[in-house]
């Protein structure tokens, strides 16, 4: 089943390639990918609340990835991505 993953990560050199590299290392395929620095902070207040932090403009990026996996694999991918040091949050976008 095709899933859309929504990942918030630090906007630093090397952050994106850690996520993308992980897909290949663990044998998952990326079907589409889109990444932008976060400028409209209003949409991300829930992350500030969840992690008890304050975000600034362009400080983090929003990465969307679509991939085809089953439920178990999806859980495993999300746990692996969330483990990356530069990732603040990875969830399935419904």
């Amino acid at each position: 089943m095709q899933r859309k993953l929504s990942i918030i990560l630090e906007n630093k050199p090397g952050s994106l390639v850690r996520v993308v590299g992980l897909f290949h290392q663990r044998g998952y395929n990326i079907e589409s990918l889109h990444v932008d620095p976060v400028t409209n902070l209003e949409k991300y207040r829930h992350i500030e609340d969840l992690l008890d932090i304050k975000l600034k403009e362009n400080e983090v990026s929003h990465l969307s990835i679509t991939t085809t996996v089953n439920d178990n694999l999806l859980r495993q991918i999300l746990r692996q991505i969330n483990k990356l040091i530069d990732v603040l949050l990875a969830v399935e976008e419904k």
Partner: protein
Amino acid sequence: MLMGALHDEGVELIFGYPGGAALHIYDAIFRQDKIDHILVRHEQGATHAADGYARATGKPGVVLVTSGPGATNAITGIATAFMDSIPMIVISGQVASHLIGTDAFQETDMIGISRPIVKHSYTVEDASEIPRIVKEAFHIATSGRPGPVVIDIPKDTTAPDNLYEYEYPKDVNIRSYNPPVEPDLEQIERAVEAIFEAEKPVIYAGGGAINSNASKELFELNEILNIPVTNTLMGLGVYPGTDPRFMGMLGMHGTYQANMAMHNADLIIAIGARFDDRITNTPKLFAPGAKIIHFDVDHSSVSKIIEANIAVFGQVKNSLKAIINSLNESKEDYDPKKIYSWRKQIAEWKTQHGLKHDLYLSEGDENQILPQQVVQHVYQITKGDAYVTSDVGQHQMFAAQYYHFDEPRKWINSGGLGTMGFGLPAAMGVKFAFPKDEVVCITGEGSIQMCIQELSTCLQYNLPIKIININNEALGMVKQWQDMNYSGRHSESTYQSSLPDFVKLTESYGHVGIKIEKNSDLKSGLEHAFSMKDKLVFVDVYVDPGEHVYPMLVAPNGSLKDMWLDKGKKA
């Protein structure tokens, strides 16, 4: 800047090898006297030595290498530490910032090459960042599930003419990194309930329990529960190897009783273990009737291969403390009689097909020396109290089966990556940490040749390690698989007569070499070697080349109860 930060982090020892891009750092090493630098003979040796030091002490090992080949030579050691979750800091020199990307002399993309095998990595962009990066790197390497962290330092950021105000940060705060520490008490209660209900429980503890320094808590827990315990290859020593409730190692070459107990259990309490494929055999057939409680610090290790019914996230030590507290309140509800028949069953399995111990000690000269005998003699001579490092192959499995570790951090081996060449440099790292303790490297003639150059380092720093070379004149484990699965076709697993004279080789490095070929010389030869307290002694023991490691799981498509027990005999 860098040396100051390392000193402030409590580093006493660095293993390294100099080169162009690291020269500013090496000059700073020369001009200080707080941190000792150990000059190895190959960067792989530096990483394994730092790794051995970290496994034995629990403190992170520190490695310093130059760019290009220095960095790439360190890769195998970094991957070894990564697979076994060992805290390590690897500082690699890099070409100057303005040369990056120009294919400069000794340039390589260290961050790129090491990315899949590190917990995290940093490139220093400005010298002023060094204290913060060092602080964060040590925090990441040692907290949560530990692992190696690479710091790549371009040469210009260590230039001595750039002066900065130095202040080492007191705290570290990485907003995107918060590994679990304390367990969820609701899960603890669910775990207690499951334990109370179980009639055939097993404790299965791995390297994570050692990393979390949880051996005391594990023993305390089992003083209440009296459950049969098995350890993974990485977990040996976290529960006392001579305790009557200990069943031995499980998995590919685990004991019959440990594998049978896991297969037939109704409850598996996994503690800092990750259900690796050497343990589960075919996951679909793994422990069909068992409920799984999984204690781990790493979310991604739980339900990765075997679905956990109850997951307890947190530092294993804290989680075990929490469960002990809970049990102390409700112990009267626990009926230890419920598992009596289960324990009796396990004792029967042990009697039927347990490892044979005395048999091996009584062999005469009409037979060749068996590798198991060598390990048993070493165990007796060192009174089970030595630090034992090993390489990878049959000798590693014999050591794991026949040396009984009563304490954690004394069995030092490459479990996850299975790195040949690990044993000698790892033993150096242990010896630097504990110079007064006996350090033994149990190895084979294949593995030892992969990092043999470190004998020179051992001479320079006077490291009286004992190297026990279990010499079967073949890549024994490869040969065993070829015997069992490829109709005995020994493709590239023997060397004809090209082996070196290890006695002469050792002597040329300034150490003592002993060759043992007869059973009647084995005990006395080993005793003689261990009596030379201030010498590195290389004992080259020729053993029966036909000996296999048993039990051995039947793969593929076997379960944990499917084992070869002997040549031609299946369970």
